[in-house]
C-alpha cells in the first residue's frame, strides 16, 4: 500500500473546491421485513428470522410492506420531496452470497420521492441547504462473517458464515444532489446533514436511526476540482461511515488525500474506500473501472406503487414538528444561545430535558442536571444519555427536592449518584443515605457554636462588622455536617450570634 503524504487541510482548500454526495441508508423500524412477514427484531439466533421469500427459495414471491411504503413517503415529505404518483420497484442484479436472490429489490429510475432539500444548521447558526436527489425503497442484504482471517475481511479468511436475518429488512436510501459551495466547511456540512437527517428520522418515528447499530449508514462521495472549474473531478466513495464524527473525518481525510494525489500530478481512481475509525484514514477497496452494470429492470413480481394523493396529504398533515423548527422553538422557550442548544443537541440531551420539564422541573434545572452531572456520567461510562439508569421523572424529583430546600446541590448530586448506582428512586436514596438538609436550629446551633469557638479570630472580624467573613464560618459548619446543613440558615445563625448590636 502506498503511503500518501497528506496535504495540510488549509492548503488543500486553497487549491481545490470540494464537491460531495452523501448516500444514507436508513433501516426502517417496521415490525416485519420489506417483502415478507419475518420479524426484524435484533439479536435473534442466526437465520432464525427467515422464510422462503427472504431466503430466495425457488418459487417464493415478495409482497410489499405497506408500513415500509408509508415510512418512505413520510421521509420524502419531511425532506420536502415530491412524492411519485406511480412508481415501481426494480431489480438490481449482481451476485453476492449474502444476497439470497442475487438481485436486490430496489428502485431505479422511478423513486418514490425525489427533488427535495434539507436545511441544516451549522455550529455558528448558519443554515446550509442540502438538495435531495431522491429517496427510494429497497431491502437489506444478509450479513457475511469471514472467519479465519486477520482482519475480518474476506481476504485471508478460511470460510464465511452467512446470516440472513437482516436480508429483506426495509431500507430507505436517501441520496443528495452534489453538494457544492461548502468549501472548507464541507466536512462540517456532511456531519451536520447526517445529524439533522438522523434527528428527522427519529422525529418521524420510522427508525431509531442508531448509527452504532448500523440502522443508519452513510457513504461519503467526494471529489475535488480546481477553483473556478465547473466540471466535477473524479470521486471516491467511502463506504459505511458509521458515526457523525467519522463522517466529518472521512470527508476531511479524502479532501486532503485527493489534494495530495492531484497536487503531485496523479489522478484519482474512481473506487470505493474503507474508512478506519482508529486513525480516521481511508484505504482503497474495490476499483470501479467502469460503472458496474446492474442490469436494472422493473420488478415483475410486484405491482406498481401508486400512493393516492389523499393519503399522501393525510401523511403530510400528520408530520410531526420537524427537528430544526422544534429546536428553535425550544431554544426560545428555554432562553438559551444557539451555541448552548447545539451542545445540548450534540449531547443527545434534548429529549431527556424535554421529558424532565414535562415531569415538572423548571427548564434551567432540567438543563443543568442533564448537561452537568448526567452528561459527565454518560461520558465516563460511554453510554448515551437516554440509556442511563435514571428517568426524567427521577431527575425532576431531584430538582423538586432542591427547590423545596430538602436538598442542596451537593446532596442532590449524591442522590443522583445513588439512583445511577441502582439504590432506588430519589426519595429512597435520600432516606437510605440520610441526605436531608439540616435546618433544625437546635442541631445546627451546636455546630455553629463549635465553629465560632474554633475560629475565634474570624468571629472577632465579624463582630467588628466584617460580615463578609461569615463565609469561612459557614464553610466550617458545612464541613462539620458533611454538607448536609442548610447553608443559608447557618449564615443567619452565625450573624444572629455575632452581628454587632445595632
Amino acid at each position, binding site marked *: 500500500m502506498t503511503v500518501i503524504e497528506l496535504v495540510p487541510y488549509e492548503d488543500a482548500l486553497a487549491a481545490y473546491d470540494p464537491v460531495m454526495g452523501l448516500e444514507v441508508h436508513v433501516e426502517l423500524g417496521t415490525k416485519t421485513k420489506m417483502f415478507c412477514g419475518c420479524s426484524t427484531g435484533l439479536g435473534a439466533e442466526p437465520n432464525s428470522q427467515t422464510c422462503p421469500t427472504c431466503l430466495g427459495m425457488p*418459487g417464493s414471491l*415478495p*409482497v410489499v410492506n405497506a408500513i415500509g411504503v408509508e415510512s418512505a413517503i413520510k421521509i420524502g415529505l419531511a425532506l420536502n420531496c415530491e412524492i411519485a404518483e406511480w412508481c415501481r420497484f426494480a431489480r438490481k442484479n449482481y451476485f453476492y452470497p449474502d444476497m439470497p436472490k442475487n438481485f436486490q429489490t430496489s428502485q431505479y429510475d422511478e423513486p418514490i420521492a425525489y427533488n427535495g432539500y434539507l436545511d441544516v444548521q451549522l455550529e455558528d447558526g448558519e443554515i446550509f441547504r442540502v438538495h435531495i436527489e431522491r429517496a427510494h425503497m429497497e431491502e437489506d442484504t444478509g450479513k457475511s462473517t469471514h472467519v479465519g482471517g486477520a482482519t475480518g475481511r474476506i481476504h485471508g479468511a478460511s470460510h464465511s458464515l452467512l446470516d440472513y436475518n437482516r436480508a429483506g429488512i426495509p431500507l430507505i436510501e436517501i441520496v443528495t444532489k452534489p453538494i457544492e459551495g461548502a468549501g472548507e466547511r464541507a466536512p462540517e456540512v456532511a456531519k451536520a446533514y447526517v445529524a439533522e437527517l438522523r434527528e428527522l428520522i427519529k422525529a418521524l418515528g420510522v427508525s431509531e436511526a442508531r448509527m452504532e447499530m448500523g440502522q443508519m449508514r452513510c457513504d461519503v462521495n467526494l471529489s475535488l476540482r480546481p477553483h473556478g472549474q465547473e466540471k466535477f473531478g473524479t470521486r471516491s466513495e467511502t463506504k459505511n461511515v458509521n458515526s457523525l464524527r467519522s463522517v466529518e473525518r472521512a470527508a476531511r481525510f479524502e479532501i486532503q488525500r485527493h489534494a495530495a494525489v492531484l497536487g503531485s500530478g496523479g489522478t484519482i481512481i474512481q473506487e470505493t474506500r474503507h474508512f478506519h475509525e482508529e486513525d480516521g484514514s481511508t484505504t482503497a477497496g474495490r476499483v470501479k473501472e467502469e460503472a458496474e452494470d446492474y442490469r436494472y429492470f422493473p420488478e415483475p413480481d*410486484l405491482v406498481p406503487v401508486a400512493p393516492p394523493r389523499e393519503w399522501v396529504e393525510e401523511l403530510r398533515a400528520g408530520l410531526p414538528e420537524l427537528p430544526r423548527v422544534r429546536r428553535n422553538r425550544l431554544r426560545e422557550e428555554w432562553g438559551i444561545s444557539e451555541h448552548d442548544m447545539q451542545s445540548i443537541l450534540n449531547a443527545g440531551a434534548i429529549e431527556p430535558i424535554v421529558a424532565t420539564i414535562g415531569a415538572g422541573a423548571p427548564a434551567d434545572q432540567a438543563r443543568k442536571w442533564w448537561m452537568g452531572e448526567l452528561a459527565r456520567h454518560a461520558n465516563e461510562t460511554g453510554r448515551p444519555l437516554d440509556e442511563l439508569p435514571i428517568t426524567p421523572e427521577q431527575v425532576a424529583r431531584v430538582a423538586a427536592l432542591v427547590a423545596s430546600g430538602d436538598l442542596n446541590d451537593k446532596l442532590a448530586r449524591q442522590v443522583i449518584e445513588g439512583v445511577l448506582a441502582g439504590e432506588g428512586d430519589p426519595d429512597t436514596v435520600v432516606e437510605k443515605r440520610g441526605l436531608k438538609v439540616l435546618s433544625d436550629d437546635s442541631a445546627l446551633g451546636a455546630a455553629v457554636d463549635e465553629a465560632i469557638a474554633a475560629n475565634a479570630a474570624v468571629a472577632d472580624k465579624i463582630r467588628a462588622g466584617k460580615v463578609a467573613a461569615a463565609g469561612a464560618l459557614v464553610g466550617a459548619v458545612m464541613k462539620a455536617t458533611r454538607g448536609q446543613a442548610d447553608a443559608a440558615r447557618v449564615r443567619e445563625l452565625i450573624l444572629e450570634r455575632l452581628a454587632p448590636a445595632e
Partner: protein
Amino acid sequence: MTAMTKHKSLVRLTAAEIAAKIASGELTAVEVTEAHLARIEAVDEKVHAFLHVDREGALAQARAVDAKRAAGEKLAPLAGVPLALKDIFTTEGVPTTVGSKILEGWIPPYDATVTKRLKAAGVVILGKTNMDEFAMGSSTENSAYGPTGNPWDLTRVPGGSGGGSSASLASYQAPLAIGTDTGGSIRQPAAVTGTVGVKPTYGGVSRYGMVAFSSSLDQGGPCARTVLDAALLHEVIAGHDPLDSTSIDAPVPPVVEAARSGSVAGMRIGVVKQFRGEGYQPGVVQRFDESVELLKGLGAEVVELDCPSFDLALAAYYLIAPSECSSNLARFDAMRYGLRVGDDGTRSAEDVTALTREAGFGDEVKRRVMLGTYALSSGYYDAYYGSAQKVRTLISRDFEKAFEQVEVIVSPTTPTTAFPIGERADDPMAMYLADLCTIPANLAGNAAMSLPCGLAPEDGLPVGLQIIAPAMKDDRLYKVGAAVEAAFVEKWGHPLLEEAPSL
C-alpha cells in the same frame, strides 16, 4: 369384472365421473389412487411422464378423503381424484427439481399455493411430472432427467415444457394434471397429445411456490382430458392469493357453469390473419378450417381479424422471457440449496457458484440466461428489453381492438403435430416456432385454451384448436370449448383420445 379390468376401465374415467363415484360411495379414493398408481407402474417406464411418484403421500391423501366421507362430511367437487403435478410447483417434503440438475435432491420446506389448494380440495397428488428444464422448451427434451414420450407415438415429443403432464393424461396415468404456461407450455403439449389445457388469465392462478421462469408471463393452469374436468380443476386452483402481488383480487370467472352450458350460438368469433401461412402443416390448417366451419354450423359468426403486431410476438417473447429468467435463475448459486460443485475447501464462493451453474444448468437454460443478461445490459436495454416491452403493448392493443369485435379468437394451437424426439434438438429457432400461436396470449395476459380438433390426415397425430378470450373472461373459453368438444365427440362418435394406440 376382475380387479385388473376394473382398474383398466377406472383409469379411463373422467375426473367428474370419478368424483361422482367417490361421493356416492361407488368407488373409494384409495381404490382410485391404487388403480392409477398401478397404471403408472405399468406404462410409465415407456412414457416417462413422472420424475417422482409419491405413492405414500397419494395413498395418505386418498385415505383422508375416504375417512371424511365415512364421517359423513361433504366432499369437495374433486375430492379423491388423482392428479399429476408439474415438477415446477413446490411440494413440502416432496422433491421439486424443475427438470434441472441444479435442484436435484432439493426437498422444499413449503407448499406452493396451487399445491395447498389441491390438497385442501382433497385432490390426490400422484407425483411430479417431467418438464423442460425450468419450463424452457417445447418438447420436454430439455429435461435433465431424459425425455418423455408422446403416448400417440413414443418416438415423438409430448410437447413442452409440460410434456410430462400432457403425456400422463394421454396415457391414462392421471385424469387431471397441472401445467404452467409461459409461452404455450400448457396449450402446445395439450395440442400434440389430444388433451385439453388452459392458460388462465395472467394473475388468475397464484404463482406463489411456482418456480419462476419469466415472472410476467408464467401462469399455472389446469390440464385434463375433457373441458369440464379442466373447468373443475380451474376452479380449485384459481382465485386471489395475498402471497402473490400479481394475483388478481376478483372473483374467479364462472368456468364450471360455462363448461356445463357450452354454446356458441350467436357468438362472434375471430380468426386472425396472422395465424396461418408458412410453416403450418397442411393437416393442421385443414383441421383448423374444419373447426371454423363447425363453429359456423353451431351458430357462430366468424369474423376475420388483422393483428399485425402478432408477427413480432415471437421476437419480443425471446427478449422478455430470457431477460426475466436471467435474473430469476441468479439465485441458484449453491449457497442455500440444491447442487453444489467444487466446494473442496480451496475454492472461493464465487468459483463454487460458477462451477455449480456450469454443471447444473443445461444448454437451453444457459442460452437463455446469456441472451437475457445481454438484453438487459446497459447500452442494449432500450434496444432489446425496452423495444420488446413496446411490442408487448402493441400486441395488447391488437387484442383489445379485436375483442371489440369478437368474443373469442380461434387459431391452431401450434403449427405442426408432434415432431420426432431429437428432430429439433439442435435447432432452437425451429423449436421456438412451436409457440408461434400461443405466445401472443402470454404477452397480453389473456386467457387461452387448447382442445383437440382431430388428427392430421398426413400423420394421424392430434391437432389442437386454440381459443383465446379477454383477460378475466376465462369462462368464455369453457363455453366455446364445451360446445366444440360436444360437437366433435358427436361427429367422431367418441373422444379423440380413444384413437390413441394402447400402450
